[in-house]
């Protein structure tokens, strides 16, 4: 698989480390209600879809950026690649 890195262009997926569902970007607030349940969900439970999946890839052997890759888990087709830090900044600005 080739991942179209927003800054570096097409890179081989073997340069990256895979970290799974991009929901890991949204860590629950430990002070919130039901935070225990939320952390169990955050740490251990996954939707694991057959189809479009947003997931984290870390460019360890490159610029060490975290990417959010939107990929089809049935065909391995990569639909969209974004920098995780930009997504996070955008979400925080709201």
């Amino acid at each position, binding site marked *: 698989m080739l991942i179209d890195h927003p800054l570096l262009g097409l890179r081989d*997926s073997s340069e990256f480390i895979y970290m799974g569902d991009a929901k890991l970007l949204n860590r629950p607030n430990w002070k919130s209600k039901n935070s225990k349940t939320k952390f169990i969900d955050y740490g*251990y439970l996954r939707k*694991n879809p057959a189809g479009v999946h947003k997931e984290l890839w870390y460019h360890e052997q490159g610029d060490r950026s975290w990417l959010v890759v939107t990929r089809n*888990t049935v065909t391995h087709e990569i639909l969209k690649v974004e920098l995780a830090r930009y997504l996070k900044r955008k979400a925080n600005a709201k």
Partner: protein
Amino acid sequence: MKYSGIKVLWEGLRGNMGWKPLWRNPDPKKSYDIIIVGGGGHGLATAYYLAEKFKITNIAVVEKGWLGSGNIGRNTTIIRSNYLLPQNQPFYEFSLKLWENLEQELNYNSMVSQRGVLNIFHSDSQRDAFVRRGNAMLMSGADASLLGVNDLKKIVPFLDFQNSRFPIKGGLWQPRGGTVRHDAVAWGYAKEADSRGVDIIENCEATNFLVKNGRCYGVETTKGVIKSKKVGVCVAGSSSQVMGKIGINLPIESHVLQAFVSEGLKPVIPGVITFGAGHFYVSQSNKGGLVFGGDIDGYNSYAQRGNLPVIEDVCEGGVALMPMIGRARLLRIWGGIMDMSMDGSPIIDKTKIKNLYFNGGWCYGGFKATPASGFCYAHLLATGTSHHDAKDFLFNRFEKGRLIDEKGQGNQPNLH
């Protein structure tokens, strides 16, 4: 149908016209005591042990494709009980004991071949870890012995003992481990379950569960609604898809694992050999092909095919361990979808919906577990309580912090 030497001779003389199909092809009845979703190795074993040990025969096994079309038909056929943790090892030893008597019990030749499993180690610290593992195996009643370089040179002289980066220092040897003809396991369980009255319904996909007031009372299928008192899901590889139909998220990611077969060669590999410095394991099939594999690809996938980097990595591991296979040509590569759980261990448990049970999360160790998984799942379905050897394979271990993390990798499924 009963198999025997005399029967083979008799049929040989009569032009083999008397063989019959091993199982019926029934239409589903309106209701059953138990429906098992998934006609793979584990599902069929569950049906067999329910009928044989727990005397429940009003059972349907519904299978989306043809019988045994999932991971029972696409694994690398290894059986062993060389685990470390006390929650795992007794279970796998129980499984190995069931394997040893499987052919007699099912009256079916599944070619259980106990030629031994050898785990190679390459450093002092790895030796210490394997000594510990060997002791854990002995304590569970399994067999294990530690072999030095001189012992290894007698049985596997072709290894690269003097490899400059990973010299071979010895191995952990389990003589009772080995390989089994994987498809024949599904067929044998199907034959015996069917002969006890279990309905095996192929090409019948479970499309939804019938749930009312938090109780499950049947499944909707492509062949209509089937009611039952209990439903047991047993669909490793598609667990998240099936449980997702009623909104249950599992501690599981689906990953693709590739397997490889070389062209047929003369007998050369005794038993199963694993590389200690990378991830590579190999055995030789009865047809002569080297059957080998290594790591999962490492990203969520339902594709049943992998990518080239892992193929390269596995082949590099193989050549580092035994350079002689560098000239063997690769014949086939395929992929299967694994339920990779958050701690690398399986789940055999009730769900939060009453009368709905779950068996899955086998990572890439499901084949060797087939008999014990079926037995323990049958125990849970029949009695409502966990079998002694599977009492820790529960959903709540994640929230309770009782993870069974054989490899010590934490909640990252692609590392288990």
